[in-house]
């Protein structure tokens, strides 16, 4: 080990530079490794290690045939893996392959540049998958590393320590940061220039427009924040914190979909929403999810207020915007937790909420007809619902994150075989049972619960708070929310227990040692993340236009951004030009002082040429006044001091000496 370190310190310049560059490339690739196809990650690591060994042992690079063979092989593999060479994922794979293979061909300066530029691209591809603070920090380090390596290749003399190159890279980045900020704030945020490949937006999670059993369970593992809420006052009790999202009313096989009614529009039921009690007012900051859904606390009768984003309410009380939420969206809402909606009497349109896919879940159907015939219940819907909920409570049903894979008859499996499930299993099985009992039922998805953030006081809803519950229709009461999950696991909705994925080794160790510290750490981290999201990731066109408004534009448009940028450019160019002009006329301070002295003498009519050196002036002074004259001696002393300052060894006190001479200038006995 010691020998290796020793060797590392005495590597030849070439080997040291190559190893450093490989290290930086490795750092750029690390976040990608888990996302790339296995063969690609393995190949990238192997090639980098191979190249490092060659550099370490000062061995020659492999021939071009090797490279060509590897290239053909990897392109074939990419084609086989992704079925295409275009698109984002295939592009990233190819890029990583090209970058690592190019390191085997570092012969000329041009090759080095190609490696640098490919690395910049690879850095960008990291952002496809994550734009978190951590990724940003890692890529900042990578950028510094790349700049350091680039600067280092342009220090051709000797073997300067990498520290020097790193210092220069840091200086450049630090001075470049203001330029970055200005461009970031003012560069117009354009819409995508052309159609995006279909895989562009994956990696952004959230609820989906359909619900297949098992899809919300995936979300439970996602700790990212879905929305932040600031209540004007106290938040309502946790059991009422249902944030309504897509309502799924049509069951196709095992998939719940939005209502696809067989009835014409005029026969559809109106929302018929009536609210009671005090309104709860709050502002929501919704994370972008590329869906038009506006999540509100059940139920909001008035349109949520968001700038330039009209919204409308569906018959199922769901609010939607006129376009997908692709940026952070803020809106204020008034909700009432006491409300009733839906028709009071049975209508034909309710038939949509009774449809079941034929032939599925026979055991559930049999159990339903058994219940309907049960004399103790007397066919009363409310009592039948209670009976089913009672079975959920007492029948040994369990709420779990890992219910296993369900087959076709999801309700049968849940009710009779597995008896375990996540909220969507429970809600789906419950809704199917209701419909079998001839009670109109539908599934509502959204978020439920949440928690107060301990640092910044926002009410936070995470993707892991995604929930599915049911609504059943009862004559005379309309649609009523029934959350069967709370029957299985009262803690889920009452005290907001969450099934948490097993934390990692470090996290669990920390949690075990000091749970308070761990929570505090997590809270701070999330607050920082919140700032990051609010300031950086959600900086968009509307924020830009707000900025312009602050700058005094009446009705800013994105062309104004261009004008502001242009004005800044012109201003900085003018400053630069002024500086150049000043620099051109800037004289050596010593020469300036000498010129002032000879100017004084010329003004008195003495024959002093403009370019006379001090000693020549001394001569003139002595000729005019005589060497013994006091004034002549003072002038002579000053002029000779000026001369010796010029020819003194360059040192630290040169400037102070000159300053002293400049101060003395005005007190000298100049001739009148």
């Amino acid at each position: 080990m010691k020998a290796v370190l020793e060797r590392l310190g005495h590597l030849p310049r070439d080997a040291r530079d190559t190893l450093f560059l490989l290290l930086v490339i490795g750092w750029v690739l690390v976040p990608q490794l888990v996302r790339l196809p296995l063969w690609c990650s393995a190949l990238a690591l192997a090639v980098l290690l191979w190249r490092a060994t060659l550099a370490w042992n000062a061995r020659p690079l492999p021939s071009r045939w090797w490279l060509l063979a590897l290239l053909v092989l990897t392109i074939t593999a990419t084609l086989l893996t992704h079925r295409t060479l275009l698109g984002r994922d295939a592009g990233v794979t190819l890029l990583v392959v090209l970058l690592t293979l190019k390191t085997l061909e570092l012969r000329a300066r041009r090759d080095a540049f190609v490696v640098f530029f490919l690395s910049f691209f690879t850095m960008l591809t990291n952002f496809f998958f994550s734009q978190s603070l951590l990724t940003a920090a890692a890529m900042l380090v990578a950028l510094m590393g790349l700049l350091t390596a680039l600067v280092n290749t342009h220090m051709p003399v000797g073997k300067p320590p990498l520290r020097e190159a790193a210092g220069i890279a840091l200086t450049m980045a630090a001075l470049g940061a203001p330029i970055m900020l200005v461009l970031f704030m003012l560069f117009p945020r354009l819409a995508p220039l052309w159609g995006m490949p279909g895989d562009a937006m994956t990696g952004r999670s959230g609820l989906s427009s359909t619900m297949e059993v098992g899809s919300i369970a995936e979300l439970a593992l996602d700790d990212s924040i879905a929305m932040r809420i600031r209540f004007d006052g106290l938040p309502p009790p946790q059991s009422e914190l249902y944030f309504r999202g897509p309502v799924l009313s049509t069951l196709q096989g095992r998939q719940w979909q939005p209502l696809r009614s067989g009835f014409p529009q005029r026969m559809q039921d109106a929302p018929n929403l009536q609210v009671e009690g005090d309104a709860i007012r709050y502002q929501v900051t919704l994370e972008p999810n590329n869906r038009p859904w506006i999540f509100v606390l059940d139920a909001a009768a008035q349109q949520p207020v968001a700038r330039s984003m009209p919204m409308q309410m569906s018959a199922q009380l769901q609010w939607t915007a006129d376009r997908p939420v692709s940026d952070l969206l803020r809106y204020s809402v008034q909700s009432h937790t006491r409300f009733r909606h839906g028709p009071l009497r049975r209508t034909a349109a309710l038939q949509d909420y009774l449809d079941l896919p034929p032939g599925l879940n026979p055991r559930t159907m049999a159990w339903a007809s058994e219940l309907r015939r049960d004399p103790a219940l007397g066919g009363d819907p409310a009592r039948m619902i209670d009976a089913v909920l009672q079975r959920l409570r007492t029948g040994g049903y369990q709420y779990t994150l890992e219910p296993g894979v369900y087959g076709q008859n999801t309700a049968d499996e849940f009710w009779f075989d597995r008896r375990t499930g996540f909220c969507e299993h429970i809600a789906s099985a419950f809704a199917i049972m209701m419909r079998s009992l001839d009670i109109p039922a539908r599934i509502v998805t959204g978020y439920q619960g949440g928690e107060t953030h301990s640092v910044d006081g926002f009410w936070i809803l995470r993707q892991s708070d995604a929930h599915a519950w049911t609504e059943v229709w009862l004559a005379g009461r309309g649609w009523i929310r029934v959350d069967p999950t709370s029957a299985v696991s009262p803690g889920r909705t009452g005290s907001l227990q969450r099934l948490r994925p097993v934390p990692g080794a470090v996290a669990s160790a920390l949690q075990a040692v000091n749970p308070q510290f761990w929570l505090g750490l997590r809270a701070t981290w999330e607050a920082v993340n919140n700032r990051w999201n609010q300031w950086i990731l959600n900086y968009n066109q509307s924020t830009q236009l707000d900025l312009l408004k602050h700058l005094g534009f009446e009705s800013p448009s994105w062309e104004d951004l261009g004008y502001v940028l242009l004005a800044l450019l012109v201003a900085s160019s003018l400053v630069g030009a002024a500086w150049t002009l000043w620099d051109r006329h800037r004289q050596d301070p010593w020469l300036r002082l000498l010129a002032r002295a000879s100017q004084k003498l010329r003004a008195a009519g003495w024959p002093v040429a403009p370019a006379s050196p001090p000693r020549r002036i001394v001569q003139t002074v002595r000729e005019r006044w005589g060497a013994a004259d006091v004034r002549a001696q003072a002038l002579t002393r000053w002029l000779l001091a000026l001369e010796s300052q010029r020819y003194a060894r360059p040192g630290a006190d040169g400037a102070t000496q000159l300053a002293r001479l400049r101060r003395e200038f005005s007190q000298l006995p100049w001739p009148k």
Partner: protein
Amino acid sequence: MALAQPFPHPLRHPVRHLQARFRRWLQSRLTPRDVMLLTQRNVYILPTRPGLMLAATLLVLLVASINYQLNLGYLLTFLLAGSALVGMHLCHGTLRGLSLQLLPVEPGFQGASNTLAVDLVSTRKRVRYGIAMRMLDGSQWVWTDVPSQGRATIHVAFKPAQRGMVPIPAMTAETRFPLGTFRVWTVWRPASRVLVYPAPESHPPTLPEGRPIAGCAAQAQVRQASGEFDGVRAYQRGDPLKLVVWKKLAKADEMISRDTHQAQRHELWLDLAETGIPAAASGVGPALESALSRLCAWVLLADRMGLDFGLRLGGQEIRPASGEAHKRRCLEALAGYEGGA
């Protein structure tokens, strides 16, 4: 001295012709000076090919950021662009404010490599990295770093094409530090001239026969070396004191030496008219040049052998002598010989 090389033919090589003309014009605009302070006015900057590649990279990064709506992508692109912009200023600043000072130049031979020593003086606190110099039409860069508030000496090789007091051809200093995306350079014409001796012929014929001293050589009888005096002659520098006829000096105030058989040796004269190259003495052009180059080789040879020798170039005559100073005088005469006369 004819400096101008002919331009390439304007019709056959129009581009090269224009380039050469432009270059000549550019150089003629430069004031020759031995100390040049590099300022905004004489430092030029243009992007390099990698610089254009970086610009293309930035553009692609920007398009990717727009298309995928990546705010971090924007940050990366703009930080990189900002750093490159700062790099441009650093690159320009590496040369700006630097002072180039030509150190005294040693004379050299035509066609042989000579070195120019140039001091790069920096008054700035920051180190100036990666500065390269070469002759403007040379190909070999010499690299150096200039320490903070210090100086670095660069030795640039050049091959003078003409003999005589030749102006030092234009030099160029360049840097691509720190990112290699911009090339910053300057062109410098030193005011000094360098003395260039003719190229010594590589395989000269043997030295010409010495010839007896003029005047007495014809009558002098060759005897065996006996140490006896044969007569007197005018004093020559280097005659031993015991040979001086002191009585004569006292009477006539004239230095007379006794002439011995040894002293009556042959004198070696290197004469332009007797180099064995026809038409050299009167002519100019290649014949004269090759004759001068033979004479140069002879001068060096004779000096190496420690012989006394004289040099006759047309009307110009350097009396026989030896030693480093004499050799230089002869070489200078050869370098400056204009022909004709």
